[in-house]
C-alpha cells in the first residue's frame, strides 16, 4: 500500500513543533525520541509500518484542542489513535505526522441509569464501558471482538459492530452525543443525553468517518439493561448452502436472535485443534444465541430447532447450562487466535445480502483454489457481514501481495452481489484503492466535500479512506497554502 511521501519542510521543523507543543503539554504527554515513537508505527494491520514524527498523549479536551490548534497553524498532519487495534490501517502514521493518542483519557464522566446513558472519555476501552455499569446489570451493546482492548474513540471512528449487533445495532445506533475537537482547535458539542440531536445529523456522519473530521474526546452512549439470560444453540450442516438457507428461514419466521454466527469446515477444524471445544466435524456450523427469561429462551430455541430440523442438520446441540453455553462459544471466540497459530492471515470484512451467502462462499472456495491460498470463513451470518480469513506466509516473498490480490477479488465479489467492501472494520489504507469499485468518482466527491467542510486544510488522517489519486489535489492544495 502506497502512502504519500513525507513533506521535508515539516520534517525540518520538528524542533520548532516540539517546542510549541511542549509549551502547552506536560512533559510526559509528548513523545519525540525515535526509539519511543516506534511504538506508534502501526496498528492491527501490522504489515505496514512507519514511525510518526511525534506522538502526543493528552489527558483532556483542552490539551487536544491546544495540540490540534498548533498542528493546524503549523500545517502538520495529525493521525488520531484510539487503542491502535484497527485492522485496516486507520491509525497508520506517515513520517511527517503527529500521532494523537487518546488512551490516557479513559475516565467515566457520568453514569445515569434513569436516562440510560453513560458519558465517557473516548480513550476508555469498549469492555470497560460495560464494566462501569455492570453492578446495576446494564451493558453497552456494540461488542467488537477486540472489545477488551479497543477504545470507544476507535469504535466511533470505524462505526464498530460485533457479534450481537443483529439485535442491538452498531456504534452509530448507540451513540447519542460527542464532544469533538475540530482540526483548528474549536471544541463542539453534538447531541447529548436526549435521543435526537437537532439540525443535520452530524453525529451520523462523524460516526464512521475514520478520524478524518475531528477528534472525539467524550461520548454519550446508550446503555441497556441486561436480559435475564442468554443461551446458544449449535447446529451443524453438511453444506454451506443449507446452513445459509436455514439462516434465511429463521429470519423470515420472525425470530430475531441476538447473534447468528457461521463457521465453515476449515475454520471448524482450526478452532477444534486449538480450543478443543468439541465441535462436530461438518461443512458448516451455526451458533445462534437467543435472550430472555428461561421460558422465553426455551420457546425461541424450540422455534429455531424446528426450522433447523427441516434442513436435516448433522448435529444439534442446545446448551443446558452456563458451562455448555461457554463451550459452544469457546471455539468461535478463539477463531482468530486459532488461525493465527496456523499461519499469518488477512481478515476480510465485506458484507453481502444474506441471500447471497451460498453463492459467495462457493466462489471464495474457487478463488482459494486458483490462488493456492487456504481460506477459513467465520462471520456474522444474520447481517451478512463476512470475515473470510486468508492464510499466507509473511516470510515467503510475494505471498502477502498474492493474498492482498485474492482479498481484493473477494471484496469485489461482495460488491458485485449487492454488498459492500467493509461492514465493521473500516476502509483505512487497506480498502482505500477499492473504493472506486463500489462508488463512482462523483459518489466519492460528495464524501470529499464533507471533509472539506470539517477539515478544509486536509490535515486529519489525510491519506486514508479515499484512493490517493482522488484525494491528491486536495492534500496538495493544503500543502501549497502553507
Amino acid at each position, binding site marked *: 500500500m502506497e502512502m504519500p511521501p513525507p513533506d521535508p519542510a515539516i520534517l525540518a521543523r520538528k524542533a520548532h513543533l516540539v517546542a510549541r507543543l511542549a509549551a502547552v503539554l506536560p512533559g510526559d504527554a509528548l513523545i519525540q525520541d525515535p526509539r519511543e515513537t516506534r511504538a506508534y508505527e502501526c496498528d492491527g494491520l501490522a504489515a505496514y509500518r512507519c514511525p510518526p514524527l511525534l506522538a502526543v498523549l493528552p489527558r483532556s479536551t483542552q490539551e487536544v484542542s491546544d495540540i490540534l490548534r498548533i498542528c493546524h497553524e503549523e500545517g502538520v498532519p495529525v493521525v488520531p489513535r484510539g487503542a491502535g487495534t484497527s485492522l485496516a490501517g486507520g491509525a497508520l502514521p506517515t513520517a511527517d505526522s503527529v500521532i494523537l493518542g487518546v488512551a490516557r483519557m479513559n475516565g467515566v464522566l457520568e453514569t*445515569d*441509569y*434513569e*436516562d*440510560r*446513558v453513560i458519558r465517557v472519555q473516548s480513550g476508555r476501552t469498549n469492555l470497560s464501558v460495560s464494566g462501569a455499569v455492570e453492578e446495576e446489570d446494564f451493558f453497552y451493546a456494540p461488542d467488537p471482538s477486540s472489545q477488551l482492548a479497543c477504545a470507544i474513540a476507535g469504535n466511533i471512528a470505524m462505526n464498530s*459492530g460485533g457479534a450481537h*449487533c443483529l439485535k442491538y445495532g452498531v456504534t452509530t445506533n448507540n451513540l447519542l452525543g460527542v464532544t469533538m475537537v475540530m482540526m483548528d482547535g*474549536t471544541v*463542539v458539542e453534538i447531541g*447529548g*443525553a*436526549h*435521543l435526537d440531536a*437537532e*439540525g*443535520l*445529523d*452530524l453525529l*451520523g*456522519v462523524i*460516526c464512521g*468517518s475514520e478520524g478524518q473530521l475531528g477528534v472525539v474526546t467524550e461520548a454519550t452512549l446508550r446503555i441497556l*439493561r*441486561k*436480559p435475564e439470560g442468554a443461551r446458544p444453540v449449535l447446529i451443524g450442516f453438511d453444506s454451506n448452502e443449507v446452513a445459509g438457507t436455514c439462516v*434465511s428461514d429463521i429470519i*423470515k419466521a*420472525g*425470530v*430475531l436472535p441476538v447473534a447468528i454466527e457461521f463457521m465453515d469446515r476449515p475454520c471448524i477444524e482450526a478452532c477444534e485443534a486449538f480450543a478443543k471445544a468439541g465441535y462436530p466435524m461438518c461443512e458448516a456450523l451455526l451458533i445462534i444465541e437467543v435472550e*430472555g*427469561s428461561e*421460558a*422465553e429462551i426455551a*420457546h*425461541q430455541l424450540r422455534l429455531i430447532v424446528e426450522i433447523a430440523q427441516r434442513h436435516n442438520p448433522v448435529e444439534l446441540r442446545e446448551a443446558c447450562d452456563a458451562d455448555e453455553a461457554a463451550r459452544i462459544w469457546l471455539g468461535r471466540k478463539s477463531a482468530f487466535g486459532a488461525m493465527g497459530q496456523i499461519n499469518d492471515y488477512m481478515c476480510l470484512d465485506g*458484507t*453481502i445480502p*444474506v441471500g447471497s451467502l451460498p453463492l459467495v462462499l462457493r466462489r471464495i472456495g474457487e478463488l482459494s483454489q486458483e490462488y493456492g491460498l487456504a481460506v477459513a470463513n467465520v462471520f*456474522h451470518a444474520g*447481517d*451478512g*457481514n463476512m470475515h473470510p480469513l486468508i492464510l499466507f506466509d509473511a516470510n515467503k516473498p510475494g505471498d502477502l501481495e498474492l493474498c492482498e490480490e485474492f482479498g481484493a477479488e473477494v471484496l469485489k465479489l461482495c460488491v458485485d452481489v*449487492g*454488498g*459492500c467492501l*467493509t*461492514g465493521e472494520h*473500516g*476502509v483505512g489504507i487497506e480498502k482505500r484503492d477499492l473504493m472506486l469499485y463500489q*462508488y463512482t468518482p462523483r*459518489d*466519492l466527491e*460528495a*464524501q470529499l*466535500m*464533507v471533509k472539506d*467542510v*470539517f477539515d478544509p486544510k486536509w490535515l486529519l488522517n489525510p491519506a486514508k479512506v479515499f484512493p490517493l489519486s482522488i484525494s491528491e489535489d486536495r492534500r496538495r492544495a493544503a500543502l501549497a497554502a502553507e
Partner: protein
Amino acid sequence: MNKMLTPHSEAELAECIAAAHAPLHIIGGGTRGCAVAGDALTTQGLSGVELYEPGSLTLVAKTGTPLAEIETLLASEGQRMAFEPMDMRGLLGCSGAPTIGGAFAVNSSGPRRIQGGAARDYLLGVRFVDGSGQVIKNGGRVMKNVTGYDLVKLMAGAHGTLGVLSEVSLKVLPIPEASATVSLAVANLAVAVQAMSAALGSPFDVTGAAYDPAVGLVHIRLEGFAPSVAYRQEKLTADLARFGTAETRHSSEALWQDIGFVAAFAGRVGDVWRISVKPSDAPRLAPLLGAEALQFDWGGGLIWALTPEGADLRTCMAQAGVMGHATLVRGSGETLATLGRFQPQVRPLEEISKGLRQRFDPRGLLNPGLMDTASMTPGVMG
C-alpha cells in the same frame, strides 16, 4: 405563477434540478408541513418498490412510493417498518399520501425510537440528486456498511436541503406475534417518568413508553412471541405496582398509533411544538411551558406541547437550563417567521451545517431557508 415539476425517473429529476434557476420546494406526499416558496418539485413520478427480500429483511423503493403501498406489501410477508413513521395529516390538517422519501427526509420516528431506533437507523442506502444536478449514491442494501462516510444518516432528516432523494433502501423487521400494553394510573408527571424509567431500565424489552397527562395514564408496550409477552407483562405489572395500579390491554395498535401521530392535538387551535430532552428533565420543564395540552413519549424524552400562538418555548428551555431542542411543528406563517421552525444551533455547528449546504446545494435551490435557522425565510403551512 409557480410551476409544478414532476420527473418520472432519476435522470429526469437530475435534469430538472440542473436546469432550475429558481428555488425549488421539494414535495413527497406534501403531508409534512415543510412548504417553502418556489416552484414545486414532486417525487410522485418516482414510485414503486424495486426489490424486496423478506429473508434479508431489506426493501428498496423509489422515494415517491406511498408509505401505505409499502406497508401493505410488507404485511403480506408478516413484516413492517419498525420505526413507525409518523402520519402528520391529522395534526397538520392536510391531505395527501405520505411517501417513503418524505418519511426519511424528515427522519420521522415513532414510539419505538426508545428501543429499535429512529428512521435513520433503518435507512441502509440512498440515491439522491444534489443541488448541482449530480446523482450520488451512498450506503447500500446490507445491514452493516462502513465503506466511506455515512451520507445516508446525513440525508435522513436533512429535509431535502442537501439533495432530493430518488431511491432508498431500508431494513424491515418481522411483525411480532403478539403485543400488549400495560397502562398504569399515576399521580403526576414526576411519578410517570419514574415509572417509565423503571420499565425502560428493566430487562423486559419495552418498545413503547408514553404518558398522557389528560387521563393520567402511563402506557408501556411489550411485543414478541405470545408466551414471552405474557410473561413480561406479568413481571412488569408487579414491578410497576409501586407507581400505580395497572391494567393490561391486548389490542393496543390504535392507542400507539394515536400516540405516534399525536392525534390528541388534531383539530385543536394553537402552535404545536416537539421537544427532545433527557427524560429526567421533563418533570422540571413541562410546567414552565405554559401549554394547553401535553403528551409525553420516549419515556418522557419526547414532549409534544400545544401552546397559545406565538409562545417561545425555546426561551423556557434556556431559562430552565434544560439541554435539548424544540421544533415548531405547526404554527402560523408569522410565528414560524419569528421563531423559526428549528432550534438555532451554536455557531460552530451552524457553520458546519451551512458549509455542507453550500457544497451540496451551491446555488441555494433546494428548500432554501427551511433548515437555515440563521436567516429564516417565512414558511407556509402545507
